[in-house]
């Protein structure tokens, strides 16, 4: 089962193979935990939240097209579930409409290596991520922590790829600013 791709496992699980779904759970548990802990920083019981994601994924497994990639599909379920959790528990404002989706933005090429080598940015992510709005925080988690391609993030968030780039660029600027501000007050 280890040699099978996510999509092959998902197709097997669709036919009722519980072991195949269990394997998918094991493969994605750590990623979902990271996503939950960084995105839902005010929620302490992320174990339950992550468990709910996999249960929802199983319930909706027949909606997955095995010809497409499993990872963005699962992240999309997690994204929707996390937004519900934020709305219900932390009461952080999650806007229904994002003006960044209104107009086209130039698409910047992915450059995760440069961001990983940027010590200041990495420090800012570690210390100031919780001070970003959910909209900006999520794109930082997906792009800079989960290292997902921007095209996948666009599909997860259901926004144009240019919007992902704009949010990420805005988040980086804000993170650096927050970090400087924090350092000045220490």
């Amino acid at each position, binding site marked *: 089962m280890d040699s099978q791709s996510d999509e092959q496992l998902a197709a097997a699980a669709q036919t*009722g193979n519980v072991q195949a779904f269990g394997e998918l759970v*094991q493969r994605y548990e750590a990623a979902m935990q990271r996503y939950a802990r960084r995105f839902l920083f005010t929620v302490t019981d992320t174990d339950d939240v992550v468990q709910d994601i996999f*249960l929802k994924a199983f319930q909706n497994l*027949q909606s997955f097209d095995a010809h497409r990639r499993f990872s963005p599909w699962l992240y999309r379920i997690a994204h929707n579930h996390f937004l519900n959790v934020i709305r219900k528990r932390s009461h952080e404002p999650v806007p229904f409409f994002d003006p960044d989706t209104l*107009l*086209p933005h130039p698409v910047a090429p992915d450059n995760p290596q440069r961001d990983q080598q940027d010590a200041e940015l990495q420090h800012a992510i570690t210390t100031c991520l919780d001070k970003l709005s959910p909209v900006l925080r999520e794109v930082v988690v997906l792009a800079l922590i989960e290292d997902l391609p921007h095209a996948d993030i666009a599909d997860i968030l259901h926004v144009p790829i240019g919007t992902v780039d704009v949010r990420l660029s805005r988040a980086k600027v804000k993170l650096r600013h927050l970090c400087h501000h924090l350092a000045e007050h220490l």
Partner: protein
Amino acid sequence: MNPADLRKHIESAINTGRVHMRPRWHFVLRAIIRVAAVTLTGLVVLFLVSFVLFTLRASGVGVLTGFGWRGMIAYVTSLPWLIIVITLSLLVLLEIGIRRFGIGYRRPIAYTLLGILFALAVGGVILARTNLHTRWDTAATDQRLPVVGGLYRGFGPRAQHAVTQGVILETTMSGFTLQADSGETYMVTVEKSARIPTPEAITPGARVMVGGDVKNSTINAFGVRPATDDWQPGRGFRRGQ
């Protein structure tokens, strides 16, 4: 919880029947309903756009724009605002519906909205130029059109009263008597500041369009023009004496 524990927990929930996989038909049906809802909304918006265009054209309210600022005010107030607001609301719903699909959310709202507006403008103009609305308007007037009959009777060209069309029966000192197409006869008082064509055009037997405030059987006209199709907005009329 470590990964092995979570896996066991999930597998146990599935095996004991605490969680069920929804059947494929559930998602197929949901997708069909979504596509049908978006398509239906699009068709309703297209129909309403063409209806508004037809009403504006058939009622002749466009001529009001050639009657000065009072004509412009009368034109704006005579627009079927309720239908326009409903159309705009449905347009927003249509955009939200389209953004649920990959073809929608992968593009900026400006692009999808412009695409929708372009399709509606082209489709609306084409549909407004067919005889569909003319036939349905006649059927609605004769009480032979169910469902949308009320739309034509309430907001169609015959419901617009800012412009009265008819034949001049006789001229008077202050204006003329008009036999309207609706069968009613009006005493038309032409205001001094009214925009009118050459005085010769106001002669008995001439077909005219009159813009003005209708009260009982009188019209205080702020503009008159011959009811011919060659009139072009912006060419202007000679001011009345």
